[in-house]
């Protein structure tokens, strides 16, 4: 063992001892403090009755349910807002990114103003703005709801649309949709393999057929019964209402994040070498094929890692919903449940671990997709290929 190795071991052991010391010290203090204040320890509280109500739940929940259930409710609400937010922000981001690249000055400058205005304002302000200004100040009160036929009602309490009640054959219909999706994916894979083998056979009519199948089946099978929103004196007795909290969080975060996505989209498209476009032109690709087959696939590759980061930001930012009382994980569990039980450490570690896991899973999925895309391109030149 030489001198450096010895020193390295010393440093690392010192580091570990230091951390252990800190942990023991804090742990000791913690135990002292909770025993003095009569707060229990451990996750036993999860089976106790929660006893508070939650304004929006995706699965059934009553005040008699346990704290464990409040965790699930909060998590599902976080996932719901993230899911809608990601879809909206992607669509909006692509649109604005392409608008920024438009030759039409009016369009590109409007897009630039959109990006520069929205992204220099804190996301929390976006959320509060949508909630307090748009919902509470601009939208009409309940009795004077904005109406579109019998279908859509907009007022301070949210946006109400018809709800769909599953009928007897709803399960069969879901199965049909599932089968169609699998068939379409399978056909795409088959097509990919055919192209690799040099076979060109049309498969898209079959895919179209499977796509249309559920659409055609819907009126015949009638799997869902549509119930129009019905107004009683003080509330809607039927229909589906998107509450202002969810709406504010989703719209605020999607518009805010879309400014970042649009910049990523723009710079990735611009990073595709001009030669690629010229080569595609000289091979006689029509303009939309050029975009679809040559430019976008190459741009996607540079786009995915930064876009993943933006998705993760959006997911973490759904916690801002707390400011407008959207019952997400942070607000329900780290807020109300923590206050009710007093188990600060247990609750906070659960919340943090959950966000960490969500981040990790999102990264994994995007990395996997990233790899799938890069594989399509074939091998990169390696050093051995260069004859020098």
């Amino acid at each position, binding site marked *: 063992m030489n001198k450096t190795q010895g020193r*390295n071991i010393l*440093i*690392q052991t010192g*580091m*570990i001892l230091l*951390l252990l010391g800190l942990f023991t010290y*804090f742990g000791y*203090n*913690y135990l*002292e*403090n*909770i025993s*003095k204040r009569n707060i229990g320890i451990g996750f036993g509280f999860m089976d106790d009755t929660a006893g508070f109500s939650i304004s929006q739940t995706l699965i059934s929940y009553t005040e008699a349910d346990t704290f464990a259930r409040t965790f699930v409710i909060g998590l599902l609400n976080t996932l719901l807002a993230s899911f809608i937010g990601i879809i909206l922000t992607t669509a909006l981001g692509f649109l604005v990114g392409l608008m920024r690249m*438009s*030759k*039409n*000055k*009016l*369009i590109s400058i*409007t897009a630039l103003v959109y990006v*520069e*205005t929205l992204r*220099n*304002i*804190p*996301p*929390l*302000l976006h959320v*509060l*703005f949508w909630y*307090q*200004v748009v919902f*509470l*100040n601009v939208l009409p009160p309940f009795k004077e709801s904005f109406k579109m036929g019998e279908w859509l009602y907009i007022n301070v309490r949210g946006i109400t649309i018809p709800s769909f009640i599953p009928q007897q054959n709803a399960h069969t219909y879901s199965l049909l949709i599932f089968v169609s999706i699998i068939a379409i994916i399978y056909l795409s894979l088959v097509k990919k393999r055919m192209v690799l083998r040099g076979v060109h056979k049309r498969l898209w009519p079959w895919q179209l057929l499977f796509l249309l199948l559920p659409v055609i089946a819907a009126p015949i099978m009638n799997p869902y019964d549509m119930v129009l929103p019905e107004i009683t004196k003080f509330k809607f007795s039927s229909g589906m209402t998107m509450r202002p909290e969810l709406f504010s969080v989703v719209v605020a975060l999607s518009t805010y994040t879309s400014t970042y996505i649009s910049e990523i989209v723009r710079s990735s498209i611009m990073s595709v070498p001009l030669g690629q476009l010229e080569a595609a032109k000289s091979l006689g690709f029509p303009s939309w094929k050029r975009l679809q087959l040559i430019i976008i696939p190459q741009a996607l590759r540079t786009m995915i890692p930064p876009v993943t980061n933006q998705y993760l930001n959006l997911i*973490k*930012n759904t*916690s*801002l919903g*707390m*400011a407008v009382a959207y019952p997400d994980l*942070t607000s329900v569990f*780290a807020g109300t449940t*923590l206050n009710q039980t007093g188990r*600060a*450490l247990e609750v*906070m570690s659960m*919340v*943090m671990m959950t*966000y*960490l896991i969500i*981040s*990790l899973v999102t990264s994994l999925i995007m990395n996997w997709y990233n790899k799938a895309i890069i594989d399509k391109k074939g091998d990169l030149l390696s050093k051995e290929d260069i004859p020098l």
Partner: protein
Amino acid sequence: MNLNMSLKKNMTFLRKEFFNTPLNTIMTLFMAWLVVKTGIWFINWAFINAVWTGETRDVAREGGATWAFIITKFRFFMFGFYPKEQLWRIPVTILVLSLTMIPYFMKQIQHKILVMGAQMILWPLIISIFLSGGFGLEKISSNDWGGLTLTFILSILGLLYSFPIGIIMALGRRSELKVIKGLSVAYIEFFRGIPLITILFMSSVVVPFFLPEGVSVDKMVRVVIGMTLFQSAYLAEVIRGGLQSIPKGQYEAADALGFKFGLQSYLIILPQVLKMTVSNIGGISISYIKDTTLVLIIGMFDLLGIVSPLASDTNWLGMEPEGLIFAGILYWIICFSISRLTYKVEKKVNELPTTGAIK
């Protein structure tokens, strides 16, 4: 004749740029309609129908902004609930803080890093002495700090302290020592994986449990620590990106000159890294300043947080829109100027030589 020609030229230009295809024509018309419509509405709301003077909400007019609210409450937006007679202490603090920046612009000072070290000790002292008082000055609890002042304090302290921690973590992540590397990775990934709100909760709810009995740390201090830990993880990743782009030859050359790790980082590697990452550092500083707004969730009244208590004044009920828009404009100005500044610094830094102490 001349006029006719230029008119014709303009017409062709317009036709080519805005109306060359049916789709483009539709988009142009739609955009123009949208821009004009929102523009007119905004000018009406913000200027023509706006009210600038008044003492209560009764002056408010339909379809116009009530800027009178902002004007009467201006002091609170700037300084929070700091007592009126003591307000002079805030500009004095800011002036003294700015004075500590002078050494950065002095050519005689070789090692600017020492200046930064001095600031890390001086800034909290200056802030606590002048703003909290106690040394002959009237004592003012940090609960009364608020508005733009609080945003400013949180931002500068967080940005200052996150620098050394971020650099250490970035270097740690590339260390050959397994334990150091593991700990740095765990630190960075942990703080990047969780929302800032949970860290703020942790610092306001859980941290007191870890302190021995009788010891209490001011909420303000706990929040600054939490936010620094959060920001330094992001900074570490930016610096790591810079470290990765340094050619191996630079390390080898430094080794060949006999530089040990410390000197090698200080004289050769970090100056290049900082130069390369200026724009990213500017970017995450902007996000950090935007993130300081989250302290409103744990009950602190920063520039954004103060809107709601001010609009609950019985004289000014329901003035949230004006308050939020005013705060938004201030945030916009701050963030936009930093992004412009970053751009300028980046340009200037690129003219400097690549190596040598950070001067």
